[in-house]
């Protein structure tokens, strides 16, 4: 499938075949279309750069996703760092950044889901999205995250449990607020 001698045509084939899955993973991970697009770009730049060293016997999809997971977690760390500043003085300014139509589109339910996902530990978040959204098998997920299959299973269940609990709590808050 991939002719490594022709870098240009191989990266284009790879990109067109996988960008949608990668984007979906990243959009769920970051909860934001713009970030997800930037990160998708970053993923394929890294894929291109490491393509000459790609071993043809490994599964290309899990390989791409292991890169995507690194990109996502790097982004999460950076965001966490900048969040320190945002939490203080700048929070008041931040609300202006959102375009009015964007705000309308984000329904309350979506907001809760984004919020709940963003509170998961990054590793748990990756497991949930890979298994639940991208529908990777346990084995593939383990290959992407470079951990054992049993850890994938355990993490997945814990993450789901946390997610459900968070959603329930938040949904409860809405009702109590509504009263």
């Amino acid at each position, binding site marked *: 499938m991939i002719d490594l001698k022709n*870098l*240009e045509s191989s*990266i*284009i084939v790879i*990109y*067109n075949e996988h*960008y*949608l899955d990668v*984007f*979906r993973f990243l*959009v*769920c991970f970051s*909860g934001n*279309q713009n970030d*997800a*697009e930037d990160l*998708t*770009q970053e993923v*394929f*730049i890294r894929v*291109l*750069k490491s393509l000459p060293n790609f071993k043809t016997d490994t599964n290309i999809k899990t390989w791409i996703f292991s890169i995507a997971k690194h990109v996502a977690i790097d982004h999460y760390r950076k965001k966490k760092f900048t969040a320190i500043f945002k939490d203080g003085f700048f929070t008041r300014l931040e609300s202006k950044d959102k375009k009015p139509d964007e705000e309308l589109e984000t329904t309350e*339910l*979506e907001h809760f*889901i*984004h919020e709940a*996902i963003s509170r998961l530990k990054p590793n748990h978040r990756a497991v*949930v*999205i890979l298994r*639940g*959204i991208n529908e990777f098998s346990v084995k593939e997920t383990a290959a992407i995250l470079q951990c054992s299959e049993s850890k994938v299973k355990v993490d997945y269940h814990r993450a*789901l449990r946390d*997610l*459900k609990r968070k*959603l*329930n709590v938040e949904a409860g808050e809405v009702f109590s607020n509504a009263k």
Partner: protein
Amino acid sequence: MQNEKELMKMIKESHPQHPGKDFIQSTENMLRQKARSMTKTTRVKKYSLASSLILFFAFTFSWLFFFNGSEAVINLSNTIGRDSLSSTALNDKEPIVFIYQTHNVESFIPELEGNNVNKVYSEDINVTSVGKELETALEEREISAIHDDTNISEILVDRNLTFADSYTVSREIIQRALNEHQSIMMLLDIHRDASKKSESTITIDGMDFAKIGLVVSKTTENYEANKAFASRIHEKLEQLYPGLSQGVFEKGVNPKNTYNQDLQENSVLLNIGGVENTFEETYRTADALAEVIKEIIEEY
């Protein structure tokens, strides 16, 4: 609460499932370019390794054979110098500067036979040579440039257009160049003006130079950037060749003309000399200009 499937469905539905269309295409283009430049660098690396090996062997062998002949050794070092020069030229750098002449038939009276004052346009002896000289001067300074020598006047005749449509034709040329070479950073449109010799010439260190005028259109989005670029050229020229530059002229309002400076930042129209200047004088100015452009590029 919900079962797992429902929950996943909710998560899916709460996120956009497709990236923007523009994004898909622009990312593909970006990857294409990166891949191309990667292939190029590896090719250059391989090539330079191979060529240096060959040179090394050639040198050792010749040294063994011509050990006693000092003349031979000198000849040899000359050929080696030349070879390594040409191998650096092979690194074929992406072009940064694009040079063209919208009014390509603008000519110089002293260069035309018969010195007919009315004859200030020529199909073959014209401002195109000045653009060519600028390209050569830039390449000598290892700045990659493209010079377009399209005979725009001929195209106008073929298509039954008027002189005023020159900018429409040159626009097509620029757009093609910008599409082919995304590395282009500067667009230089070379003209000459109609001023007299006394106004269009300056003597610096005993040599006559054709004066240079920089024209920026006020009616483009790039106006600020182009003006800054032109002013930088003016300042640099003032430092190195005081009096050579006549300054930056802001035009294009009435009649409205963008001079195609909306296509790329760092676009400027240059009047090099007037009708009564010679090629010698304009070439000197082209060399001076190349020097200045080199310095500006190095500042980036």
